[in-house]
């Protein structure tokens, strides 16, 4: 699941914290009137994965079933034949593109999740794969905790689960740059390790960075949230933070520190972030789309009213966005296009082959590969 969707923002501040981004451009994006967009020219194929009495079944194309949908909330994978789905009930499904080949039901003995009562219980919300393992992340909280402890399971290539979380990293979200999975923690304690890679690399988030000189009390960052992250490696990545005054900042990592690149208007809810192969960042903020081209951040003129809330892509000329309800949008390098799914997606994943997968509790769909699209 795209982190920005599930995240619960809590104002935990109460600290004397100000924010200064020296000489940074502030990105204001007017809600331009929606213009009719050309239709998506990629074929979208519905996929049926249902929950049966005995398990989960990936139905053949066109097949019908009265069984309920699998309630998939997160998708990731390595290729079109190595797909991983996470269901709302904490079941991990391995799919070869045609059928479910493995399932893991609450593999680390995870407990129940009480959605109705302050999010108490074990809430697994995201699956992420990299070359070494499949990672499932979540959070466990009791009724009194503002932020609980990490729930983490990692399925290695040997088929064994490692269920050791890290108390210092209560994940807000995780991303995979392919080789490595990165988890970012809430800024809730004084642990300098805020962003941890699956290979052990650890670094700090913005405002708690691995500086040569570490911060003083004035910078106590209880109120600062890293709300979006996309890592390109140990020496490059993007993150967006929001401070207690709801001011957003886009930062870039260089292997040492996070340098602020741009401010984002106050009270703009940041939903998601993704970086393309040109190391340019795509940001979904306040329902609109911002683009960092390596020098400046500018609004893409994509109306906030369409309610963009998540972004992934196969390349700089094939960027997909989840919009309001079941709407999806694509940037094809020159313009935005729009399409519609039969369900409201909660997550999307762009496969290396160019297919883009959409999942939600009520359905699954995949685009045709990029080569077949145009």
């Amino acid at each position, binding site marked *: 699941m795209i982190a920005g969707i599930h995240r619960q923002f809590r104002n935990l501040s109460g600290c004397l914290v*100000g924010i200064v981004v020296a000489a940074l451009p502030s990105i204001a994006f007017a809600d331009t009137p929606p213009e009719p967009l050309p239709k998506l020219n990629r074929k979208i194929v519905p996929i049926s994965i249902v929950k049966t009495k005995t398990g989960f079944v990936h139905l053949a194309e066109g097949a019908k079933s009265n069984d309920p949908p699998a309630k998939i909330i997160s998708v990731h994978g390595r290729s079109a034949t190595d797909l991983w789905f996470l269901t709302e009930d904490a079941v991990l499904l391995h799919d070869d593109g045609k059928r479910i080949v493995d399932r893991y039901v609450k593999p680390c003995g995870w407990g129940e999740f009480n959605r109705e009562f302050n999010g108490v219980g074990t809430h697994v919300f995201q699956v992420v794969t990299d070359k070494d393992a499949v990672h499932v992340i979540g959070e466990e909280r009791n009724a009194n905790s503002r932020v609980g402890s990490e729930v983490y399971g990692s399925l290695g290539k040997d088929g064994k689960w490692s269920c050791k979380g890290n108390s210092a990293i209560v994940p807000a979200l995780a991303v995979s740059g392919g080789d490595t999975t990165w988890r970012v923690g809430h800024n809730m304690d004084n642990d300098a390790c805020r962003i941890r890679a699956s290979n052990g690399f650890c670094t700090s988030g913005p405002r708690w960075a691995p500086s040569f000189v570490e911060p003083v009390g004035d910078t106590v960052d209880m109120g600062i949230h890293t709300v979006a992250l996309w890592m390109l490696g140990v020496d490059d990545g993007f993150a967006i933070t929001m401070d207690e005054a709801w001011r957003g900042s886009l930062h870039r990592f260089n292997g040492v520190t996070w340098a602020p690149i741009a401010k984002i208007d106050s009270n703009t809810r940041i939903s998601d972030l993704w970086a393309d192969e040109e190391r340019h960042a795509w940001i979904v903020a306040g329902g609109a789309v911002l683009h960092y081209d390596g020098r400046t951040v500018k609004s893409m003129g994509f109306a906030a009213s369409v309610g963009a809330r998540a972004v992934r892509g196969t390349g700089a000329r094939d960027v997909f966005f989840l919009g309001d309800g079941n709407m999806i949008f694509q940037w094809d390098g020159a313009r935005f296009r729009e399409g519609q799914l039969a369900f409201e997606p909660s997550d999307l994943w762009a496969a290396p082959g160019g297919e883009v997968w959409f999942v939600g509790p009520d359905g699954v769909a995949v685009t045709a590969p990029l080569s077949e699209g145009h």
Partner: protein
Amino acid sequence: MKIRNRPILAGLAASSLLACGAPPSPVKSGPVVSVKPQESAVATPTQKPPALRRDPHAGPLGEKASIVKWGIGVEVKAPAGVSILEPDDLHPPPGDRSLLAIVVTELLWLDDGNLVIGLGDGSVTAVDRDQKRLWTVGFRGAVRGLVSTEQGQIAVTTDAGVVALVSPEGKVRWERQIMADDLTPVRLGPKGLLLVAGPRGVLAFSPEGELVFSHAASLPSDICCDKDPKTAFSVDASTGRVKAKDLDFGIDDPHIPIPSPEPSFSFSYEKVFPDGVFSLLASGPDELYGIAVAGDKKYEVVRLKDGKVKRIPIPQRSARAEVVDEETKKRERPRLDIDGIVNGPNGNPWLLARRVFDPEPGQMYWGAPAASQLLELKGDSVRERNDLQKEFEDNPATTSSGTMMVAAREGTANLFCYGYDSGHGCGLWEKSGFRPVESKNKVISVNRVGDKTMVVTDARQVFRLDGASLVPVESPKGALYGTFAVAGTGDADRWFVSGPSAMVFHEVQGKTTPIPTPSTFEGGLVVRAPNDAWTEYGAMHWDGNRWSTIWGAPSGKVVLRGANEVWVGGAKGIFRGIPSSLTPVRVPAAKSADEGALAEAPPLTLGATLAGYAVARTSLVVKGGEPVTKGKRIAVARDGTIWLETWDRLVEVDAEGKATLLRDDEKRISFDRWFFPEARGRGILSHRERESEAFNERDTLLKLEDGKTAPADVLLLHQDVVAIDGNGSGVTWILGTTGAGSPWSAKSSRPFELAPHALVRAEDKGKFLPVLGLPSANFVDLAVSPDGGAFFVGALNAGPTGEGILFHARGRLGAEGATRYRAPATLFGVAAIANDEAWAVGAAGAILHVKGGGVTRYTLPSGEWLRAVVGSGPNDVWIGGDGGTLIHWNGRELQPVDHGLGAHAAFTGLAISRGTLWAVSPSGIVRIAKSRG
């Protein structure tokens, strides 16, 4: 509080205190020598007090300034309209691009219409009527006070104990850091006296910066910020009266000086037992017991006797089954938690323990039900005693430490007190068993004072045990928080500890005198003789004349075995401390190369791209591991051996280019220079236990010999090690900082602010000695010069912004003189080119070139953060940093280097080995050498 001459004061130390290092200090550093109270140097005031002319937040034209919520700016209301000054406008380039917050803390409007603004990073900035920044000058600590003096100067105070006088043009007239406490704003006294108060007392300076007197007093820790007119620090300049909560004295009264926080080096410690213990007991002339706890709370008694160690297991569960879970009524043997060990009344060691039951529904684990329990060590086995079971059942405990059973830890325990505030009691051992002793309040400590047993209750009252009764003992008046503990050798020599303050009360022959201590008292006292007492946790020692902080003292419970023989048992083991002849190295008081606020450095013009060099991207094959393709830090030994840190490994590269893994357990986030190779397979490095939490206590030093590491014989105490460097001729410096780490830690007290920040060794096999005299700063890097001196760089504060510092200590071990240079921003790296020449680089493109006592400052036009510098001579200096910055100085100009790692690379380490430059970065490693032909 009014202090008059008393005989005991003859033993008190005057404060001979440290200066920040800016202008020459009129106050000499050195041993504390005064033996009588200082007589005031100020005559009885006759003139009228200086009147505050107007609200410091109001300008001469009626303008108003106020701090915006959270300190994120300044709102200025002027006739022309309202404007907001953002912190961006208030600062020169900030110190660390990743750390953003700067908060406004103080405002002062000058008569000329300029507004002076204090910031949380120690910066003081003046802006003109158009809100244009005029100047900025930095100090250690967050600015706490800005006050205009009668002469129109600006008196600055900070929460790190700095007091300074600045001219309206930004020149620093003088700057002092006498103590490291959070100070009040300056109050103006008669004859231009400037007075400030902190938790340890009051300081008075002349307008020229001379310390006129210090007056020790136990003031609230938040005196800095008390604005209640009844209790706030105030000075009546017409009468010379100085007042605060529980304080009232005249400036011409005698003063008990505040003791210097500079530590004493009078003891050294050797480790005699490696594992952590939490209770220690001397049971005989050559016998010592401790309670050790292994993983999963497995307790054991450790007996040290005749140099041998015996480990004796303790039952992990009580002997009998009880109802552990009230819901299920299931009977189990409850878990035993051990709280301490004392000399039992029957001659055997007794253990104070609690039987722990399951928490009831809704109870947290720290408040689960428990019952007190006594155990006895007999021979080599521990058994339960059931003497007080009925009393323990009637007065249950919990798992909270506040309900632990207490008994005397010195001498023989005969009184055991238990329970908590709503149900408590004491049992007195008599031959036939225990006899109840009633106490109105819960007893929190039991102490043997000579042949008497004395207790302190949670009402902070003291009682003496008389038969089976507790008889009140009068506590000293003036104790800020009441009495917390009592100790002594007998009725003629008693100590009363007053809460968490820097003042204890010594009663000698019935006469009580307040004695100031160099840092805040923690816990109680252990007293062997009238001239030999220790704080319970071993940090401070009383030698009969004064209390001093002992440098090198491990933290733990103390027992005394003989004259000046102290044993300390704590988390890092058991240590034996004996008198030491260790003499610290002292860097002389520094002269300042700058008058104050710096002029804008001119932008640097870069020459043509460097030519005539070959650049090669490098990958090192390491046996048994992935190739090394990226780096964080690099250092070179005199024989050309390279040590290179990747994010998870430290590897050695020998002259043939063969790479060997040295360590793979130092996965650090920070970019400290924590290793120094001396030769192939040999060097010094620091080991960090954890990256977080135990800031300033997390590093130990290791020696590497023949590829094997062993603990070094010294620690850089209460500091995080940030850099190690040597001059290739045996002189090696190790530099630390106290400000790194947790944002919370910088807010707590600063007991080691004025302690040694470095160690130095004169020769390869020599002993490291602590170094005094380095200014308090958040140091980042050091470079040792050929003469054995060193250049130190860093920031005045632990980020995020503020002024940088370059400090030069000249001559062998830095003893021949010192100079301080201001820098516009944090400095991250320094390279010594010659005895009096160095290059330093830092944030926002800052470059300093120091030569012959002069300094030239540059700013790189790109403003990139510069993180490393190295040079082989005055015409061969390399600088690396963010944004792909790698430049070379050839003696005439700086030339950019085409290195091939791209414009995003951040060079974090540079080293020259055998004529080849190694430039390391998280994005790759390049080697650069002059092209042949």
